[in-house]
């Protein structure tokens, strides 16, 4: 019955089809809802400067981090008016892609 266990199914329009998966399908990225209160690195790089402190309140568009990537200084900005809750990075740190650099919360 080992064969039975290996069977894979795909559901299209409520019908369940017996089939096999491709490696690429198995490795597909599962979607997670984005958290807008997380400032993630959108590119891997090095933290050149941190321009804010925890607890500070800033306007949308204010610069908060300088991230060097691909020989460029990238200006990371506040996406909206908000407060810096937690800083997870230090100057000089190398961060991979999608690293949670800061946590923020909106301020009215």
């Amino acid at each position, binding site marked *: 019955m080992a064969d039975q266990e290996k069977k894979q199914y795909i559901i*299209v329009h409520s*019908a369940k*089809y017996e089939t*096999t998966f*491709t490696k*690429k399908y198995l490795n*597909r990225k*599962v*979607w997670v809802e984005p958290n807008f209160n997380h400032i993630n690195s959108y590119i*891997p790089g090095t933290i050149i400067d941190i321009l804010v402190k925890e607890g500070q309140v800033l306007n949308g568009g204010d610069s908060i981090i300088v991230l060097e990537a691909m020989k460029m200084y990238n200006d990371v900005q506040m996406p909206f008016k908000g407060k810096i809750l937690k800083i997870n990075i230090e100057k000089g740190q190398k961060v991979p892609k999608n690293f949670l650099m800061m946590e923020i919360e909106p301020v009215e």
Partner: protein
Amino acid sequence: MSLKRSILDLRKRKDEVRLGGGEEAIEKQAAMGKLTARARILAIVDEGSFHEYDMFVEHVGTDFDMGSKVLAGDGVVIGTGTIYGSPVCLFAQDFTVAGGSLGLMHARKITKIMDHALKMRVPLIGINDSGGARIQEGVNSLAGYGEIFFRNTLSSGVIPQISVILGPCAGGAVYSPALTDFVFVVENISKMFITGPAVIKSVLGEDISMEALGGARVHAEITGNAHFFALSEKECFEQIKALITYIPWNNTQKAKAFPPKEPKTKLKIENIVPTDARLPYDIRDIIKSITDSSEFFEIMELFAANIVIGFGRMNGETVGFVANQPMVLAGVLDCDSSDKAARFIRYCNAFNIPIITLEDMPGYLPGVDQEHAGVIRHGAKVLFAYSEATVPKITVIIRKAYGGGYIAMNSRHLRADFVFAWPTAEIAVMGPEGAANIVFRKEIAEAADPEAMRQQKVQEYKDKFANPYVAASKGYIDEVIEPQETRKILLHALQISTHKDIQSPAKKHGLPPF
């Protein structure tokens, strides 16, 4: 100098060039399982048919002490030959000479043979084995690449262009193969990437080997950049020679016809196709039961295996097959399978190869990843490719033809010439399960036993719509056929389509959703 002495002098000069980068470099090449540039060409073309040109071309670099260096043939071999009697133009980069690096004269040799191939309207085969641009020649190397890419584009759809990756092919160099029709790769030998592991590590901190980043398997299975995967150079050369037999010399010709042969396997629907539309089978068994000698030359076998593409012969003539594969991902259309099918359809159309479509698919692959990857624009390529194609287009619906998939897979509505269906075909806006859930939602919800009611309604829908006769009653299907008649009817349809001539509105070019 006497004539005899000048002949001896000529031979000596040629022998020197033929030695490429020298014996030591050749040994190194052999240790990697690689043949030399000339040996590769000789392994592909008919014996005694190869003629080399531009042997005495010298590089023109002067900076960084390059002036004093001699590079045999400037690291590339060009020439003409035949494969099973068909003429081809070839170039092969010689890794033993300065790592096969591309300088101005190296590029001039390549563009010379490319121009020749286009002028003579014969296929071009390029063997890539190069460390990349010759840094010492600076912007001249970039100019060289650009002129190659331009010619690739100009020749596209006029002459078949084949790229063989037998070594590194990195940075800008990858774009010439990417612009050509068919790319061949060999395990442990081919390496293709834009940015190599060293740069990726220094910039991004990601540690990956060349093979895992851009090896043969990666391109054959994941990226879809390669069309043919082989375990050795020898196997790769056999694949190239086989491909040449299926395609014409250029876009005004038809592929060479072979003596007609009956299939070896006899079509037995009850043995291949399960009547339960939810159970899988290998669509290639159906193709092989239709084609001459039951031969099927599959293209991109490892990439997006939920759709099968490739060449077979019908009554001795080349035909392109596009077929859903229920055995993999239920045969759905998704981003990758759409790209794969669309490009092949356009290839067949450009080179006068009739297309036979075998349909058995439940629809498009559901999922956020698919939607966000752009399954809309990718899927649209299939519609575009089928709609614009003017070669004979014949469809056989084997089982499921649901919804958008029914339209996309060369339906009557996209100007199919013939649409046949097996009696097992189900042509409907969606499968019975999904449709019943929507149409009879109220009845099911209000029933004392909703599940029993659901089953009953699914059956009702199945009886009424899960067949080919509703579509046949509208003329969308030309004929419902018995499975064992398939080959006979396809042969007839192909015969009738031999002189097909239709005109589309004049335009520069359409705008497929690239």
